[in-house]
């Protein structure tokens, strides 16, 4: 795993200086024994040098003289050209330690005194001047033509050196020094030096895509994680400045596929999840996200205001040796634990129910729900009871809470936590959430923290990295849709204080969040309302080929890298009416038609997506066809759809709903069987006739009566008291 890797530290490769110095006796010996032994493989430069060595006659006695020639700092590099050759050779013949160290100094000094060189040069012969010029040129190359202070140049050069492999570094510098002296090949030398510099730049900055064959080999060999990390960085760099840094003839997709496989290896995700995440985030954000998943979120606790106050709790915990801080401006009950000398989940304060261990993100859905005192609230998937107890605390133990969970085992922790925190208004039951409106309905508020793939909490459960695939996501999305619909049906829209529902998941997948909510917006009379959370990112209204309802930007997304809490999604819905626009003939037709239009995928789940995809041009067409249909309307008796009834009954339905209908008009107007809808569309478009309006009114009344009867029959059983009260109240007011 790469979690401990610090990308800022780059380990130097190859043997260090010390290893050179501490050569054993055997190497010394080998020098004596095999004197003219050449290294196994000479580089091209090495070979050149070897040739030169044979050409030049040696004069070992004159070695020390040149150094005496110049007494100032420049003595290192300012040397009479003829002699220099010999010095270099000499140094080469010796153990190369001294050379190594000298070189470093050499370069720095060279650069430092770069400016003052002209003066010194006056003393020297012409050769030197030219030589210096050459060196200067090389430096200018480094600095890309911009004027730099000598110290900056020195730093730059040094940096470059460290980034170069020691071996090649050695060679290059040898070369340049060596060949400085040669009159004939002066021009060549300059060029060569430039070349080497250029090559070094290439090595560090130009990122090359490995060939396909190489990549296939990598699969077999175990790659160094560090190399992969470096490659990821380079790759991201190229991708973010693609037009400038790309390699000729390489497609973006090639880079992306390499990046994908690298990320998979480095962070050990499966290919599917990485691809999903790449769709979700920009590249730099993606790396941040993946890195954030490698570290744990801070431990947070929530004060149980039923039993204590935050200040008292903080004091008590500090006395136990806990280092803590308030969570943030947005929470009055949260505390962050930095470190603790005692186990934070077993202090007497914890056992006495003064606080609850709870992730910061788990506060959000309850804050969004903001249950009021005296309301009845349903928590559909309650385990382990953190959110349930938070709700009870906000309601100050009044009203009632139904805490449901499908898993009986997990309910034990709910029981424990509810009793520990002193919640007395809770009923705990063990139903499948999908049965819910049948068991009990008419809640003022419902919290649905849906079961999900857990892609937001990878830092908690790294198993998610590898064990999720497309089917898992779609399966949980399907379950979530079912749960959300039954949650919506459990809400009482007529509630004076409530009628709200909060949908949340700890997943960041669009399929499990926006898509699910969008589905519910289509299926039920609900609208999105602001969640009351002033931070977090807006939900997507469009994602790849999918288009969601524009109001989905009212939902909130939270990410580990940007908010330092688990990945989370929160959407708050307001229920507009209790009637369920059931799947009538109309919707079936709709579905059929959408299938026809988009040559749709067989899966039912993908329907909303295809619906949304309809091009705007169809509306134009529909406008053409409307007049015809209108005539048909007049002749036919209008078929009253439930939606019409709903619309009539519920005058509250305003902006977003209309928008929804307007959105629908593209397909509705195409169909001849749906006159009422067309009327609505007409109305919206402002060209409806009086006749139509009258008819509509009539139908509204009819519908209303029908609905009332239905209410009397059906809903009385579910929610006796309130309904009866309502009806009685209405009857009275009628009188």
């Amino acid at each position: 795993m790469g979690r401990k890797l610090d990308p800022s530290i780059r380990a130097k490769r190859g043997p260090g200086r010390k290893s050179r110095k501490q050569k054993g006796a055997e190497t010394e010996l080998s020098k004596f024994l095999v004197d003219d032994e050449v290294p196994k493989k000479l580089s091209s430069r090495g070979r050149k040098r070897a040739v030169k060595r044979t050409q030049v006659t040696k004069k070992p006695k004159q070695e020390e003289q040149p150094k005496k020639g110049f007494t100032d700092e420049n003595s290192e590099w300012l040397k009479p050209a003829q002699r220099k050759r010999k010095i270099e050779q000499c140094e080469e013949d010796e153990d190369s330690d001294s050379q190594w160290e000298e070189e470093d100094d050499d370069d720095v000094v060279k650069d430092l005194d770069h400016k003052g060189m002209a003066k010194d040069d006056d003393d020297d012969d012409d050769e030197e001047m030219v030589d210096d010029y050459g060196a200067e040129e090389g430096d200018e190359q480094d600095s890309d033509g911009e004027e730099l202070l000598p110290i900056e140049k020195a730093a730059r050069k040094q940096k470059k050196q460290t980034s170069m492999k020691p071996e090649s570094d050695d060679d290059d510098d040898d070369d340049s020094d060596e060949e400085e002296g040669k009159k004939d090949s002066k021009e060549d030398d300059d060029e060569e030096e430039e070349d080497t510099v250029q090559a070094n730049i290439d090595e560090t900055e130009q990122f090359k895509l490995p060939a396909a064959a190489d990549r296939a080999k990598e699969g077999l060999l175990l790659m160094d994680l560090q190399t992969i990390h470096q490659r990821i960085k380079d790759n991201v760099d190229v991708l973010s400045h693609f037009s400038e840094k790309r390699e000729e003839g390489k497609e973006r997709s090639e880079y992306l596929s390499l990046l994908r496989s690298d990320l998979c290896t480095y962070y050990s995700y499966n290919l599917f999840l990485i691809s999903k995440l790449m769709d979700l985030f920009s590249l730099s954000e993606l790396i941040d996200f993946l890195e954030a998943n490698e570290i744990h979120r801070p431990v947070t606790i929530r004060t149980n205001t039923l039993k204590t106050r935050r200040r008292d709790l903080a004091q008590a915990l500090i006395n136990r040796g806990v280092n803590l801080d308030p969570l943030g401006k947005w929470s009055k009950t949260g505390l962050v634990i930095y470190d603790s000398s005692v186990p934070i989940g077993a202090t007497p304060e914890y056992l006495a129910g003064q606080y609850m261990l709870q992730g910061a993100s788990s506060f959000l859905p309850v804050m969004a729900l903001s249950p009021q005192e005296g309301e009845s609230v349903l928590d559909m998937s309650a385990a382990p009871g953190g959110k349930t107890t938070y709700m009870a605390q906000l309601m100050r133990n009044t009203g009632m809470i139904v805490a449901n969970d499908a898993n009986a085992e997990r309910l034990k922790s709910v029981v424990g936590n509810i009793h520990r925190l002193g919640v007395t208004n809770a009923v705990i039951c063990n139903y499948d959430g999908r049965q819910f409106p049948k068991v009990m309905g008419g809640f003022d508020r419902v919290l649905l923290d849906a079961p999900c793939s857990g892609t937001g909490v990878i830092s908690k459960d790294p198993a998610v990295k590898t064990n999720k695939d497309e089917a898992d996501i779609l399966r949980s999305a399907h379950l979530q849709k079912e749960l959300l619909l039954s949650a919506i049906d459990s809400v009482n829209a007529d509630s004076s204080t409530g009628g709200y529902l909060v949908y949340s998941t700890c997943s960041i997948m669009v399929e499990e969040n926006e898509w699910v909510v969008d589905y519910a917006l289509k299926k039920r009379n609900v609208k999105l309302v602001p969640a009351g959370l002033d931070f977090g990112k807006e939900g997507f209204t469009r994602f790849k080929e999918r288009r969601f309802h524009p109001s989905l930007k009212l939902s909130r997304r939270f990410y580990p890298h940007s908010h330092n809490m688990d990945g989370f999604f929160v959407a708050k819905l307001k229920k507009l009416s209790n009637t369920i626009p059931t799947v009538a003939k109309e919707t079936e037709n709709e579905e059929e038609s959408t299938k026809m239009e988009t040559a749709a995928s067989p899966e039912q789940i993908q329907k909303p997506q295809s619906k949304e995809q309809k091009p705007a041009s169809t509306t134009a067409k529909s406008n053409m066809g409307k007049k015809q249909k209108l005539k048909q309307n007049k002749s036919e008796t209008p078929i009253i759809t439930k939606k019409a009834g709903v619309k009539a009954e519920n005058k509250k339905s305003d902006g977003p709903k209309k928008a929804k209908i307007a959105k629908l008009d593209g397909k509705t107007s195409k169909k001849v069987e749906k006159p009422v809808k067309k009327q609505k569309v007409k109305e919206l478009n402002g060209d409806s006739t009086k006749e139509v309006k009258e008819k509509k009114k009539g139908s509204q009344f009819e519908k209303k009566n029908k609905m009332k009867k239905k209410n009397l029959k059906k809903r009385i059983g579910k929610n006796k008291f309130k309904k009866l009260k309502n009806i009685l109240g209405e009857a009275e007011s009628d009188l």
Partner: protein
Amino acid sequence: MRPLTDEETKTMFEKLSKYIGENIKLLIDRPDGTYCFRLHNDRVYYMSEKILKLATNISRDKLVSVGTCFGKVTKTQKFRLHITALDFLAPYAKFKVWVKPGSEQSFLYGNHIMKSGLGRITENTSQYQGVVVYSMSDVPLGFGVAAKTTQECRRVDPMSIVVFHQADIGEYIRSEDTLT
């Protein structure tokens, strides 16, 4: 879920009265609505009428817990108080015992309270009187039975037991599965 029989009510109230005496009636007559006891799965739950009504919607096999669990009726028809009842015992307790911070931990691990760990004790506590145990900062930790009278406690040696352990809040962790 059903109301308690007379016998069950009697045994339970007898048990409760050991800890809170005549304050039991404060549990029944509350200013904020009527409260009642119900038996479900041999457990006795204490809840308000409102929640009771709500809970009737839920079938017996799916109902896990309503309101607060006070304890359970054993197979020999005795009543055993659970730690979950502490929230209602502590405010009304007649006899209290405070433990020193050093032996808090020991008590929370399920041990009896020694004289050495005894911080304070209510005057006139008789032997075998039900007591509620507090930490020195007045956080209720559990309950038990006084092994000695207050007078005797003053004299006994430090290692002798002064309160027998019955339930402590450590059980929320130790026996989460059997709480209800």
